[in-house]
């Protein structure tokens, strides 16, 4: 089962829909068609038996008529005086009265009894034919003439069917010594009676002595044989005509099945348009995005509300994605730029060259001890600043570098400054971006020193709740209000010496890492020293910081 499902899931939606629709509709259709066929068969069967029943009732009646007629005729031959006279007639004798009386008798008989419709007798020796039949004169006349044409000898002894001017008669002929006698039963009458008794309107009822093959498949034939004569009722009706009488609902059953069947492709087309279409479109759009086409948007409006929402949402998502991508790129670019700037700031070529010159000068003086210590300080300083272009450093590392730097500067410019630090021991392992303190201390030795007196540089690091407070103060030159504002806003300071990007870059890094959680202040006045004061969130976990 699971395998089948897994196999099924691999199909495209179109195939799935076609499969599902076919699986659902096809069996129903087949059942419906089979059921309808069965109902039709049952209906036809029922109709047949009903027809048989009705027809056999009338045929029984016909049989009864035949039987009574036969016994009557036999009785007459034995008992009727006129008949015996006519039988015993000798040619040339007077017979007309007897024939006439007998004819009258037969006439009476046809009026009052239900057996045969008419009687006739024929005296061969006189060629006298009389026909007793309650019908119109013309019918009687043509019938009489028709009987005359018959070769009575040949047909005697059984019931035969005669047809004359549209009327169908069942005729029996008997003879006793040249006296032929017989009876006629109007089959049309029976046919009409049977037809009237049937519930099928268009059924054709024929009483016949021949067996005909059914014409066409739709023909249903019911044959009922009479017992007393070689005659059978042949009732035929068109099956389709019959089925037309079935209630409407049962008739449209198979049609409905057919309609459902043709509905499958239509349904598939509709589903394809309203459901699969948007799905495919979305799929394609996703593919475009994936293939690196961020400007791809769905232009179709959508075939339904969900598709419209899908289109709208996809497009806004793609917009968002693009914005996000650009932002990420921008951030990445800024990060790279910061890194590059860091590198540029750290590897201050002037400083390195000047230091090398100092080493050279010390060597000139032959001052080996100073060369050793100076070179070591310089190496430590360079190790720190060249290897930490990104990431974070422990506060103690940074402070170590600051002390290295200041020692170097003290050797270079003795008596220019003194250095005082005040560190809370618990913050020594806090992680900070590198050069956060060094940057400002370097500025002190570059811009704060005075020609006439020594200045003091004070670095303080302490914890204040969840923040690290750093302060770098000096008692030096100070700066004017305009410079202070520019630096505090984090803008690049530009003067005749060029661009000063140290403070700007430092603030940029802080903003990038800590966002708005950074507090940064500069207080300074010309001639009255500078105080840098900053607070950053205390984060001792390196993982929380963005590489920068």
């Amino acid at each position, binding site marked *: 089962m699971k395998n089948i499902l897994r196999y099924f899931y691999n199909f495209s939606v179109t195939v799935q829909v076609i499969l599902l629709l076919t699986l659902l509709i096809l069996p129903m259709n087949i059942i419906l068609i089979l059921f309808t066929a069965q109902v039709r068969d049952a209906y036809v069967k029922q109709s047949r038996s009903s027809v048989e029943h009705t027809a056999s009732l009338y045929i029984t009646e016909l049989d009864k008529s035949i039987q009574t007629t036969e016994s009557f005729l036999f009785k007459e031959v034995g008992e009727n005086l006129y008949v015996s006279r006519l039988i015993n007639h000798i040619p040339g004798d007077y017979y007309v009265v007897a024939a006439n009386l007998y004819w009258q008798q037969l006439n009476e008989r046809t009026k009052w009894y239900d057996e045969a419709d008419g009687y006739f007798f024929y005296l061969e020796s006189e060629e006298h034919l009389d026909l007793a039949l309650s019908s119109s004169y013309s019918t009687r006349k043509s019938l009489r003439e028709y009987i005359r044409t018959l070769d009575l000898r040949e047909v005697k002894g059984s019931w035969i069917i005669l047809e004359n001017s549209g009327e169908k008669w069942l005729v029996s002929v008997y003879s006793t010594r040249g006296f032929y006698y017989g009876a006629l039963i109007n089959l049309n009458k029976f046919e009409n009676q049977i037809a009237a008794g049937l519930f099928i309107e268009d059924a054709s009822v024929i009483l016949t002595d021949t067996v005909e093959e059914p014409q066409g498949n739709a023909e249903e034939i019911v044959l009922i044989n009479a017992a007393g004569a070689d005659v059978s009722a042949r009732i035929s009706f068109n099956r389709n005509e019959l089925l037309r009488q079935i209630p409407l609902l049962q008739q449209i059953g198979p049609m409905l099945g057919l309609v459902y069947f043709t509905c499958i492709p239509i349904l598939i087309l509709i589903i394809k348009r309203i459901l699969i279409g948007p799905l495919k479109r979305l799929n394609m759009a996703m593919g475009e995005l994936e293939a690196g086409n961020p400007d791809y948007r769905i232009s179709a409006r959508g075939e339904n509300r969900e598709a419209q929402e899908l289109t709208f949402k996809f497009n806004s998502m793609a917009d968002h994605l693009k914005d996000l991508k650009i932002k990420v790129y921008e951030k990445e670019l800024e990060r790279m730029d910061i890194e590059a700037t860091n590198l540029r700031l750290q590897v201050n070529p*002037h400083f390195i*060259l000047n230091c090398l010159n100092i080493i*050279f*000068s010390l060597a000139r003086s032959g001052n080996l001890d100073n060369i050793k210590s100076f070179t070591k300080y310089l190496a430590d300083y360079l190790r720190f600043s060249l290897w930490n272009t990104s990431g974070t450093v422990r506060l103690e590392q940074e402070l170590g570098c600051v002390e290295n730097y200041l020692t170097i500067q003290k*050797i*270079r410019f*003795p008596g220019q400054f003194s250095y005082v630090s005040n560190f809370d021991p618990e913050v020594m392992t806090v992680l900070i971006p590198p050069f956060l303190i060094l940057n400002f201390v370097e500025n002190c030795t570059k811009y704060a020193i005075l*020609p006439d007196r020594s200045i003091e540089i004070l670095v303080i690091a302490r914890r204040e709740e969840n923040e690290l407070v750093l302060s770098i103060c000096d008692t030096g030159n100070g700066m004017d209000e305009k410079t202070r504002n520019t630096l505090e806003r984090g803008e690049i300071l530009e003067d005749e010496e060029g661009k000063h990007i140290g403070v700007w870059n430092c603030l940029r890094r802080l903003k990038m890492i800590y966002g708005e959680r950074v507090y940064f202040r500069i207080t300074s006045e010309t001639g009255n020293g500078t105080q840098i004061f900053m607070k950053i969130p205390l984060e001792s976990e390196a993982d929380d910081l963005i590489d920068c």
Partner: protein
Amino acid sequence: MTLLIVDDEILAIQGLMDDIPWTMLDFDVILTANSYAQAVNLFMSHTVDVLLCDIEMPFGNGITLVKWVREHYPQTQCIFLTCHDSFRYAKEAVNLQCIGYILKPAETQEVTGYLKKAQERLAEHNESRKNHDYRQQYLKQLKENMKPSGSKDAVR
């Protein structure tokens, strides 16, 4: 002859002082200064013949100092001694008619060579000035001698 060395780094000056073979050079007095201000003060109190000057200094750099010297003591021979191989500084040095632009750290011979060159220049200068003075003197004398007898036409 007097030499003035200006550098904000005391150790650099000390190195030069310890290393240059001063006996090969004819400097009577060697002065040192660590800033623009100190240098200017020394110029005021001494006659400085040769100036060996660092460019990068706080509170007034070497270029500014030499500009000032050119203004007030045009006969002083100037040599720049700097860490910076900058075209801007080199151009300034040429404009200020410096005889040398030495990159630090520099070989002792190079510095010595430039100092020697400065001394030669100075000597030439002195000689030509002497000649010039002599010529002036001579012409003056000629003029005076010709005044009583000579006509205006003769002068033309």
